[in-house]
């Protein structure tokens, strides 16, 4: 079921440094570049004036939005509220690097209306942070969390990366405990994935970096969920955990349930319920299109019934709620329990899904292979 209001995503393509595992559209850029980016972003907002739906979430992602001046962020939010339709009090999310967090900045973010700060902590271990090429120490991470807490944001979320080479469930338990001690409201735990074109991919090809094998990955995945659930952080998606339902991300869920969203900034994706389009991936073509008064769209696709159904399975099976076959039957006219009876039976017998009324709910083992579960269904 879609949400009532749409989501708005703003991509900030700048980082002070590029992490060796990152394949997002990011760059390091000087002050001039950043200024011209802000101007272009403001103009892109204008291009959507009058046509966009009403938004109740505004998400600054990246890249590193926290490396922008709070004043610039403020101008963007003001322009959004002036030109686009938003609810009275939209929920603003900000991704931030610990080293960018100061009491003064945090207070400025709060004034703009930021309610969730998502801190790119990644690890509380100095060696791991060095391996990941991060610019902060474990102490800085703790300080940043404390500052955010004291500033009074509704939700303080931290990102962690696991499944590092050589990691065992033991060492990972210790890292998780360190995270739990800082009492965040929300955790996003990403398993290290090596993408083509990143520095880690290069190291892997040279044999200088070895990823965890299937079994090792499965073990730390399981450990993450079991350990956090036991500590009171209830999982609700493969990578997301919240201390209570009120702290779950109300923005990300829009991606999972086919709620429309508008993405602004280089590489950002948008969806209106049937068509998905995406902006030019890099700064220059994105900016040039805007300067010519055109939406900086690289390409678009219209989703077929089958595409939408596959996405529904794909995103649904990544969540603790699973998929609702009754809802799918209403939306797509397909009764999965009938068309895939044998498969459902087999997945159930192998302990990968549970059935609850009309829902198919992945077990922890099922969540671990959610991607291939979705591909198994005959649509």
């Amino acid at each position, binding site marked *: 079921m879609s949400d009532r209001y749409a989501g708005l995503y703003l991509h900030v393509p700048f980082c002070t440094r590029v992490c060796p595992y990152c394949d997002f559209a990011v760059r390091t850029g000087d002050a001039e570049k950043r200024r011209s980016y802000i101007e272009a972003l403001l103009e892109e907002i204008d291009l959507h004036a009058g046509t966009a739906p009403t938004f109740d979430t505004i998400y600054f992602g990246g890249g590193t939005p926290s490396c922008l001046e709070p004043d610039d962020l403020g101008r963007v939010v003001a322009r959004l509220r002036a030109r686009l339709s938003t609810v009275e009090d939209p929920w603003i999310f900000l991704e931030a690097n610990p080293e960018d967090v100061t009491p003064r900045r945090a207070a400025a973010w709060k004034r703009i209306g930021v309610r969730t700060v998502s801190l790119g902590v990644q690890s509380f271990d100095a060696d791991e942070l060095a391996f990941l090429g991060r610019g902060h120490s474990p102490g800085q991470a703790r300080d940043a969390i404390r500052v955010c807490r004291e500033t009074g944001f509704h939700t303080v979320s931290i990102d962690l990366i696991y499944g590092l080479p050589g990691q065992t469930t033991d060492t990972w338990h210790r890292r998780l405990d360190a995270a739990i001690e800082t009492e965040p409201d929300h955790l996003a*735990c*990403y398993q290290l994935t090596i993408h083509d074109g990143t520095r880690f991919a290069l190291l892997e090809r040279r044999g200088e970096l070895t990823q965890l094998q299937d079994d090792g990955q499965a073990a730390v995945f399981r450990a993450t969920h079991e350990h956090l659930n036991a500590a009171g952080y209830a999982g609700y998606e493969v990578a997301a955990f919240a201390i209570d339902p009120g702290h779950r991300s109300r923005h990300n869920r829009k991606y999972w349930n086919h709620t429309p969203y508008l*993405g602004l900034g280089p590489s950002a994706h948008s969806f209106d319920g049937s068509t998905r389009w995406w902006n030019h991936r890099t700064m220059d073509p994105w900016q040039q299109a805007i300067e010519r008064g055109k939406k900086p769209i690289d390409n678009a696709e219209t989703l077929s019934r089958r595409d939408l159904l*596959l996405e529904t399975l*794909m*995103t649904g099976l990544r969540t603790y709620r699973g998929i609702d076959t009754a809802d799918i039957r209403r939306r797509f006219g397909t009764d999965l329990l009938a068309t895939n009876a044998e498969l459902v039976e087999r997945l159930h017998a192998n302990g990968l899904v549970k059935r609850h009324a009309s829902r198919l709910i992945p077990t922890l083992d099922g969540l671990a*292979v959610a*991607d291939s579960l979705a*591909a*198994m269904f005959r649509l």
Partner: protein
Amino acid sequence: MSNIRNFCIIAHIDHGKSTLADRLIQLCGAVEDRKFRDQILDSMDIERERGITIKSNTITLDYTAKDGQQYQLNLIDTPGHVDFSHEVRRSLMSCEGALLLVDASQGVEAQTVANLYLALEYDLELVPVINKIDLPAADIDRVKDEIEKDLGLDPDEAVCCSAKLGQGIEDVLEAIVTKLPAPQRDTGAPTRALVFDAQYDPYRGVVLYCRVKEGSLRPGQTIRFMNSGKEHTLEEVGRLRLTRAPQKTLEAGEVGYLLAGIKTVRDVAIGDTLTDGSNPAPEPLAGYKKAKPVVFSSIYPMASDDYPELVKALDKLVLNDAALTFEKDSSAALGYGFRCGFLGLLHLEVVQERLQREYGLSLLLSAPSVRYHVVLENGETVSVDNPSYYPDPSTIAGAEEPFIKGSVMIPERYIGTVMELCRERRGENIQFNYLAQKRVELTAELPLAEVLFDFYDRLKSSTQGYGSFDYEVLDYRPTDLVKIDILVNGEPVDALAQLAHRERARLRALHYCDRLAENIPKHQFKIAIQGAIGGKIIARSNIQALRKDVTAKCYGGDITRKRKLLEKQKEGKKRMKTVGAVDIPQDAFVAVLKTDTDS
């Protein structure tokens, strides 16, 4: 007519037969130098690439000898591999003499001996030719000694040459003229001609190659195949230059071609005798043996959509490969295909390669099998070459499998190794006799099924390349035959079933299980791969369940990218064969069915 010589060159593989033929053709000026290419008689790509001759070929050469007279030399090129010995036989039957070619460094090999016996069987006059005398390792004295002791031929008659360098070629030609007999001439008797080969010409239909033994052939004549009784009207006769050269007649003693509007080589029994329909001879020519397939395998197209293409390709292929047999077959795992019969493993490989190369097909072949005789409790005997048709074991009283007599020639020091190999392959009655120069001929009676799987490779590697091998089919002998089923999650994969001797079954099954386990990707559940005889499991291999494949990041709103990855996964599954809820990629079948590293 006394100026005609019909001859062929027989040799062990690689002793330089095609190169010698090239030089004879060049020296007789049958082809301009600028049009010349090596292995000129080998027309198929595979022949040139592998350096082997698969199809017989024939050419007429004009040679002015030292005695001042002009001679018509008909060279009938023969295949060098044991699989094609039926073609060699037919070629020999068309000749009065043969050059027995021996490599000056390798000396007499297994096929040299086998070919000698064949030639003697047809009463051919033989001239030994020692080739490759330019090689540093050439040892003419030793080879002459072998020719005398191993072959029983007069070493002083031997002609030495280097076909590669063109040395001694004239001596070879002179020997053909002076030492080989002219054909007997009986033009008055009713016509009898031996059909020793056929090729397909897309414009003219079947081209028959024949040797006229008695009488004559001319256009307009009604010819009759004496065994099949079919009649045709002769359209054209002629000699085989590099292209066809029409003549008014083909007389007794001559070798040439004929065209008679025949549509497919299927209609022609090669080896049959042609006679004049209006004045038939009382008896066909004697001595012809029909080629029988001994190795069987099912051929499936990789993509089941390609089945109609496979049908077309096979129909065309048999136009000039009369030895290949095929009939429809189907497999639950692999779809529709054909059960094919081959003369041997090389023949199988050649057919596979021609189908893939000349017709652009991607194919899968089931494990090669021999033809077994299965005796049922009710006394009936059935032939089984396809595991799918193996009778219910409870009705079987016994089984027999084909045996061959294998002959291996090796330097003395390898006796132990080769005897061991023969024993391991269930060889019986292993004997050896010493030849000249510390060499040994070892003979053994072996099940053909054991020779099919990498026997020759093993022989070559365990004798550092010195061992040479030749065989002939002997008879059927009792065997303890079982059918091995390969089960994936309890369901049999029919295309992988095979028949084997009980003692060899476990190893074979293990090999299959391991190969499958290596090549089937992990699934969301554990997969058991088993080899079984009846209900009894004899081998097992497991594939652990996939434990983790979810990528934790969900890329902001970029759901498209993730969906496309899934689409790819789903696309991949379509190309797999599903057995017992397990998706088996084609690669896995290919890996399993490859015989090169069979244990």
